[in-house]
């Protein structure tokens, strides 16, 4: 799990020079988030952090490590355990032009504050007819961790993405984490930034451009992690890693999969997804959350609405099991999509039945 993930095969000539060129640095997602917060806080004094254990504890997952010492307790606020209260306080502060970054220890706890995320953050710009914008970021780990049980494992991407007025981002790699968090903090609208606890410790290569302090990624644009021509696999957050592994396996069997890292669930990059499906004619959507009314359902509808004639096979939807997350390790493994599930689904869309050998 901790091995670095190569996005594209590196040109052989480049390999030869690797020892001498400024090789791609590696960075964990945790460090990427920390550096993004650090840089944004130093660039704009209106940015401040708020959340449980973000200060003296250095962050429940150490994302905000060192920031209290650097910026002081006025800008890195340890809050009492009052999600509804401090989410609302963040919104009120954002009404007046400050730029709070509110951390939820996990997004499961955001349910206690969801009234403020939806009703006072997302809808205010509309209700006030453009008078009051809310430049707030709600961030924290989302989705399943390992063995934490039903109340700590839900993925909230679909819930938040259903609400107009919110932007919902789901970074995967360190580059995503840095670029999207910076874009989120600079954005004048409320952003829900869904990280993943299991990705925090993963190393990803980052280029010098990514390390630059003005690096930002556009919100609303997906990234094609791996080009392919037979089947499109869309995924977000941790599932991108699984999809890439599945793509490797599929490649050995002669199926060239195109992996799209959604990056932004709202606004959803429908044009990239549809362009890819028009190229490959097959689609597998992968997500970790509950299947009903999920992100995959939305992507499927979007493709059916816009590219129906191009589909050669029904859209396959891989999602978590339709049960609250069980605790036992083997049940948990069954409740979350695994690489084999993605491979099987891709093969189904290519009319390769399992376990027969692949035909040309």
């Amino acid at each position, binding site marked *: 799990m901790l091995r670095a993930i190569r*996005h594209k095969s590196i040109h052989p000539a480049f390999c030869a020079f690797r020892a001498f060129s400024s090789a*791609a640095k590696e960075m964990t997602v945790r460090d990427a988030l920390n550096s993004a917060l650090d840089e944004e806080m130093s660039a704009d*004094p*209106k940015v*401040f952090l708020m959340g449980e254990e973000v*200060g003296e504890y250095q962050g429940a997952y150490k994302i905000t490590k060192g920031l209290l010492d650097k910026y002081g*307790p*006025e800008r890195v*606020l340890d809050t*009492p355990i*009052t999600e*509804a*209260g*401090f989410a*609302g*306080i963040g*919104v*009120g*502060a954002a*009404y*007046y032009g*400050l730029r709070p970054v509110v951390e939820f220890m996990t997004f499961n706890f955001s349910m206690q504050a969801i*009234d*403020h995320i939806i*009703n*006072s953050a997302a809808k205010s710009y*509309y*209700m*006030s*007819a*453009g*008078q*009051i914008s809310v430049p707030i970021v709600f961030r924290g780990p989302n989705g399943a961790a390992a063995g934490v049980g039903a109340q700590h494992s839900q993925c909230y991407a679909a819930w938040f993405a259903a609400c*107009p*007025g919110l*932007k919902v981002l789901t970074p995967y790699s360190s*580059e995503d984490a840095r*670029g999207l968090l910076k*874009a989120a903090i*600079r*954005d*004048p*609208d409320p952003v829900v930034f869904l990280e993943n606890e299991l990705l925090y410790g993963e190393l990803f*290569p*980052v*280029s010098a*451009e*990514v390390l630059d302090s*003005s690096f*930002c*990624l*556009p*919100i*609303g*644009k997906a*990234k*094609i992690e791996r080009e392919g021509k037979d089947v499109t696999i869309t995924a977000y957050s941790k599932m991108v890693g699984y999809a890439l592994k599945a793509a490797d396996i599929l490649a050995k069997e002669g199926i060239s999969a195109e992996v799209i890292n959604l990056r*932004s669930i709202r*606004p959803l*990059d429908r044009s990239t997804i549809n362009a890819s499906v028009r190229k490959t004619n097959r689609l597998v959507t992968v997500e970790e959350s509950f299947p009903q009314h999920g992100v995959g359902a939305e992507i499927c509808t979007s493709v059916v609405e816009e590219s129906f004639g191009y589909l050669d096979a029904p859209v396959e939807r891989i999602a978590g099991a339709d049960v609250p997350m069980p605790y036992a390790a083997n049940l948990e493994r069954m409740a979350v999509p695994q690489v084999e599930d993605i491979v099987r689904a891709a093969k189904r869309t290519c009319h390769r039945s399992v376990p027969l050998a692949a035909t040309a």
Partner: protein
Amino acid sequence: MSFSATNFAQPRPVPVGVRSNEKPLSSDASRFRFRGPPSFLGSPHSLRFKPIPPFKLAIPHSQRSAASSVTHIANGKMVKSSANLLITKEEGLELYEDMILGRFFEDMCAQMYYRGKMFGFVHLYNGQEAVSTGFFKLLKKEDTVVSTYRDHVHALSKGVPARAVMSELFGKATGCCRGQGGSMHMFSKEHNVIGGFAFIGEGIPVATGAAFSSKYRREVLKEAGADQVTLAFFGDGTCNNGQFYECLNMAALWKLPIIFVVENNLWAIGMSHLRATSDPEIWKKGPAFGMPGVHVDGMDVLKVREVAKEAIERARRGDGPTLVECETYRFRGHSLADPDELRDPAEKARYAARDPISALKKYLFENKLASEQELKSIEKKIDEVLDDAVEYSDESPLPPRSQLLENVFADPKGFGIGPDGKYRCEDPKFTQGTAHV
């Protein structure tokens, strides 16, 4: 019924906002009690070290004179000033006009609703005008107000023009929120009215955040003159809600310049406050969190004004929040859809006799501050303002179809804003959406 205290049937003990054993609520107490509050609590500004006497509204009835003078509160000591009235003539007329505007506006709303020009949920403020007028006329334009769904009069008292509020209620494009908010969501950035929230308790954290932003701008961004005060208005039902307590805690913890104003009208739709609350005395909840809790007669605009003056000055000085419970009453039902069958007619009659507008009128006459003529001319003026507002709203256009999809995002293309302040999607370099590794 004159304005002197002895005539008000107030059996309640008068509250004093100290924690226990008469120890003053020193600002330092909170600093040493909790390890590591934000350091702007302990900043070297002179705001902190001013010794603060406990905020008292301790006026036992026996000590009041039956004459028209009212004891004046200053620094915890009571100073009897029989010659001083609480208000000047101009202030009196201003208060009267504001209350009349609120009352007539709400009556007009009811009329318009029954004529079908207004729709949805409409919650009227009749009877509670003393609370809003008592507080608002002491505020500056930069001060913030957060309210609930019963917010028409709050918006009007803060300065939002009657025309804008009426058109908003009619759902026209000339409303203060272009018809997108409605009765329950009055926003005006210019007048610092930031809601208008339908969920009870929802506005309280937002108000606390606005107070936080004022403190942040003063302490961290070092903006001179950032001493804006925030007022959060809410009802008795809200005082059982979790968010209320969360915010009392954080406001007191971080000493935010906020005043929590409870408009206790004893009824939450059909649920009596006494049936819903284990300890109905809401002002007591303030000291439990380390802030003064004050109870005041919300049908008496001058009393509310005195309490408001102290609370606002306290917040502006940087001494922290105050909880003010105003005992008031709504003459109409919860909303225009409420048949209002559960309230005892005798109770309604009792409070109708304490109508704040009649009370102020009487005070003004008794103290020769205004004549019948002047008050009548004010009423006439307000009638004209409202007729104009209705006519304006009638003639205003409905929002155009194109407005439906506007104002969802401040950044419409969803691409974020670059360091140069321009929309990133306009920067050719970043529209590719990929950064090569």
